[in-house]
Every structure is written in C-alpha cells, then in structure tokens.
C-alpha cells in the first residue's frame, strides 16, 4: 500500500501548559490521509479541529506525538518545517480578511515568492492558480479590495493554491457565502484536486458540506470519535447528536420514515439516494400488490 501523504501519530496538544489555564485541545490523535483523498473534519466549536489542522504544516508543535509529511517528521528540522509549509497549504476561515497587496496578482504571488521561485515560475503559478479558482486574467491587475466577497475568497484560496500544495486544507471554506458561491468554490476545489491529485481536507460545521467528501472524520473533545464514509457516519445520528452535531436534513427525513416503520436503508444523506430508496419502496409495494 502506498504510504500516506500525511500521518498524525499519537498527537497531543496542551495549551498554556503549567498554568491555571492549561487545556488539552488534542488527546492522542492518530490520523492518516492518503494522496488524493477528499476528507472533511467535523466537530463542534472547541472540539480541537482547528488545533489539529494547524499541526498539519507545523504552525504549532505537538506537545507529544508526531506529524509526518510523506514519511518525514515535519518537526525534525527547520528544513522539514519549511517543506511542510509549502507542501501543505492552509486556507483559514474568512481568508479574504488576510488579503493585503495592491493587486490580485501580487497577492496570489506572495506565497510562491516566499518559496524562492524565479519570476517566470511565479508568473506561471499565479496564472494557473487564478484559473483554478475562476478569476479571469483581466482581474489580476485590480485591487483585491475592489472585488466582491466571493471573488476575494477565491483570490485568497488562489494564494495558497499557487504554492501547488500536495495537501490543501481549508477551514470553513464556504462560511458566509450564498448557495451559488458555495457551489463555485466547491467546484474550484474539486478541479484542483482532479488536475493535481492533491489531497483535500475541509474543516466544517456543515454536514451538508461534509456529505460531499469521501470520508468524514469526527472530532470530539480532542479525540477522533468517528471516521468513515458519509454513509457510515450519518447512520449514527444519535452519536452525532450527543456530540452536538446534526445529520443532514435528508437523513433526518429518512430516519423519521424509518422510525415510522418504513423499510428504508440507514445512512442515506443525499436527495438522490432518498428519492431512489423511496421510489424503490413504492415500486416494490406496487409489485407486491399486483402479484397478490
């Protein structure tokens, strides 16, 4: 089996250790992310998910345990941290608040510039990154502050994409966007994944967004509580609710129908699955009546 691109081993993080404010944010987390995976990390506020992703590229150091990028301990040396910083791209919540340059071009070029690339390489990367996020070339010379909220978000994501990370981590990438804007950004992220084969990690509160990923990791009280496909995870509604999380609305409808005695499968989470299962049930019954 191919080795994972990112491997977290027995990771513990304690904030303000040795003070009265000491708080264990992560407690013995093991997690391994393969190349090309699309996963979501969900958990309620304070569950430790933001602390976890800040370890992915060495922004904060483990109190105990280790983080390996491509088999190498990222905290082993200055060079290994530096490598992780460019290979694991972190897009924070509301990244548009971090735009600062005079033009969109310069803002996107900031990350690759720090990687010591020459001007031509940077130019290629900026244009590619802008294309990935759907920012047209003529907007590269305008001030990022003249863009709409959704465009600013995309420029901020482009700034990280321009470093061509092997793992792209996004913290609540869709917060505050309207449904159309959400769909655009999800498509941009998927496009980057498809063209580069990068692993995508989305941190989110939204079960509807988590449902679009291949694997869901649920964090609760600094530990990994559940890890599986959306179907697995959403068939455990009671456990999720106990952790302050919800299932998607469609799952709730189907679970309710199941509770009312209808023979529908557990773990349904898309409108399409629900429609198919309900139609199958109706057609099965009709078939039964016809035979009788």
């Amino acid at each position, binding site marked *: 089996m191919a080795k994972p691109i990112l491997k977290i081993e027995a990771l513990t993080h304690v904030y303000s250790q040795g003070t009265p404010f000491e708080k264990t944010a992560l407690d013995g987390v093991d997690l391994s992310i393969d190349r090309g995976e699309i996963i979501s990390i969900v958990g309620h506020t304070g569950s430790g998910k933001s602390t976890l992703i800040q370890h992915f590229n060495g922004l904060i150091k483990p109190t105990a345990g280790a983080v390996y990028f491509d088999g190498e301990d990222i905290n082993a040396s200055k060079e290994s941290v530096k490598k992780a910083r460019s290979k694991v791209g972190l897009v924070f919540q509301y990244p548009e608040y971090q735009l600062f340059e005079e033009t969109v071009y310069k803002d996107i070029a900031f990350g690759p510039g720090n990687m010591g690339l020459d001007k031509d390489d940077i130019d290629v990367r900026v244009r590619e990154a802008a294309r990935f996020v759907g920012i047209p070339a003529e907007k590269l010379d305008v001030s990022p502050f003249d863009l709409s909220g959704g465009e600013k978000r995309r420029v901020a994501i482009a700034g990280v994409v321009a470093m061509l990370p092997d793992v792209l981590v996004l913290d609540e990438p869709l917060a505050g966007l309207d449904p159309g804007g959400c769909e655009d950004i999800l498509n941009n992220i998927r496009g980057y994944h498809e063209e580069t084969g990068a692993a995508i990690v989305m941190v989110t509160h939204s079960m509807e967004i988590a449902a679009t990923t291949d694997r869901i990791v649920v964090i609760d009280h600094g530990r990994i509580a559940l890890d599986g496909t959306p179907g697995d995870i959403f068939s455990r509604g009671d456990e999720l609710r106990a952790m302050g999380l919800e299932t998607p609305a469609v799952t709730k409808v189907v679970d309710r129908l199941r509770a009312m005695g209808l023979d529908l499968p557990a773990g349904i989470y898309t409108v399409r699955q629900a429609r198919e299962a309900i139609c199958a049930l*109706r057609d099965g019954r009709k078939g039964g009546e016809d035979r009788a």
Partner: protein
Amino acid sequence: MTHDIAIKTEDLMFFYATGDDTPPREILKDVDLEIRSGEFVAVIGHNGSGKSTVAKHMNALLLPKGGSVRVFGLDTADEDATLDIRRQVGMVFQNPDNQIVSNVVEEDVAFAPENLGVPPEEIRRRVDKALETVGMEEYKEHTPHLLSGGQKQRVAIAGVLAMNPKCIVFDEPTAMLDPVGRSEVLRIIDALRKKYGTTVVLITHHMEEAVAADRIIVMSDGRVVMEGPPRAIFTRVEELRALGLAVPDTTYLLWELNKSGFSLPLDALTTEECAETIYRSLQ
C-alpha cells in the same frame, strides 16, 4: 402615537458613488416594501442582490438616493429624526467580534443605553432583562472575547435589546456561527417577536432560517422579485433555483419525488412535515 407600519420604502433607489467618471451601478431599484409592526419578515437573496443594502436603509445607516424610507412614520432623510429612528430600530450584524466594545459582558450591554442617557437604575434593569432574554445572565461578569461565537452574538443582541427597540434588523446573524450557535440565535429571534411583539427583519441566504417568518421577501439584482408566506415561496423551486437560491433539501426531495411520479404538496417546512407527507402518500 402608534404606527401599524414599522418600515415602508417607496421607490427606494440607491447607488454608491464611484469616485471617478464611470456611471454608478444601481444597487437598489424601485424597492417598495411594507413591514407591519410586530411582523417577522425574512429577506432572502444571493450575494450582491441588495438585501444588506436595504437593511442599512432601515435605520438610516444609508440614505436613499431616490424614493423614500419611513420608519415608524419618520422619514430617514430627515436628519433631526435620525437619532429617534436608531433608537427604535436596532441592528445586529454578521460578525459578533465587530460589535463588542467592552471587556465585561454587562458593560457591553449597557453601552447603548448609557449613550442614550438612560438613568443608571433603568440601565441596570434593562441590562439584566436583556441578558435574561438571550440566556446569558450567568455570563454577565465574564469577558466577551472568551465566549463562543454564538454566545458573543447573543451578547450583541442583548446590547441592542437594552435600547428597547421596536424593531430589530438582523443582517446574516448566523453566518459565522456553528450549528449550535445558529439555533440559539434563531430561537432568540423567535422568542422576541412572540414574547415582546418586536418587529423582526431577518436578512439571510439560508432558506432554512426563513421558515419561521410570517413573510419572505426575495431580492435579486436590487429588486424585490417574490413576496409571500414561506409555504408559498418554497414551492416555487424552479424560480428560486434560477435566482441562485437553494430551496431547503426537504422541499427539494419532495420536488424530486414528484418528478418520479409522486404528487406531493411542496409546502412541508420541517423534516417532520416532509416525512409525514411522504409517509401518507405511501399508505
């Protein structure tokens, strides 16, 4: 004097000055709205539809470039009325961090009434009541920046309540909150109008948040394009999707089932109603 109409806009037009010779883009065009006293109205629209711009006209943060806005009978263009209008219409914004001014929760809530010159004993009473309404009384001596996003937003709402406004405009108040914080804020909004008869305007792009409203106003491209009770609006699935708005998945499921030969009413607003509708059709 009491007014049956809380907010009334007539032919409201607005644009931002461009600062150069390029012609300004109209953000609002001929917006006619009437919000009755005690009503709960949700204004929905995609980013850039003009919904927040309308909201900012409701307490004279922005003034019309054309047409007029009346708030409890007062014309927002009349500068002498501005203070009175702002006292009657409170605003709650998206980001709770931008709305907190003090280091202690109860001082933060007292900020507005202090500025209005309310006597100290009355401020004490209002602050206690406001914190109780939002369920934050036990945090009154805490520091706001250590609270969760949802708790901060509740403090921000208490700060507005302490002004005793007749109307509160919520501009995407849950956009930055987690599901728990979101449902807390929505519960408070619902309680405000039921318990106190406060007029509520909720700006959002989450259809799910609009289900409790008396009326939904849908905006697109600076205009009002649909208006009606939630049950009537939600059934217009195709029109809403054409406007870049998602209907709740519960409605979408019923609509999809109808395409597969069911004939279900689309007006189920909750997951329970949706399940009930499907269950009955299968019996």
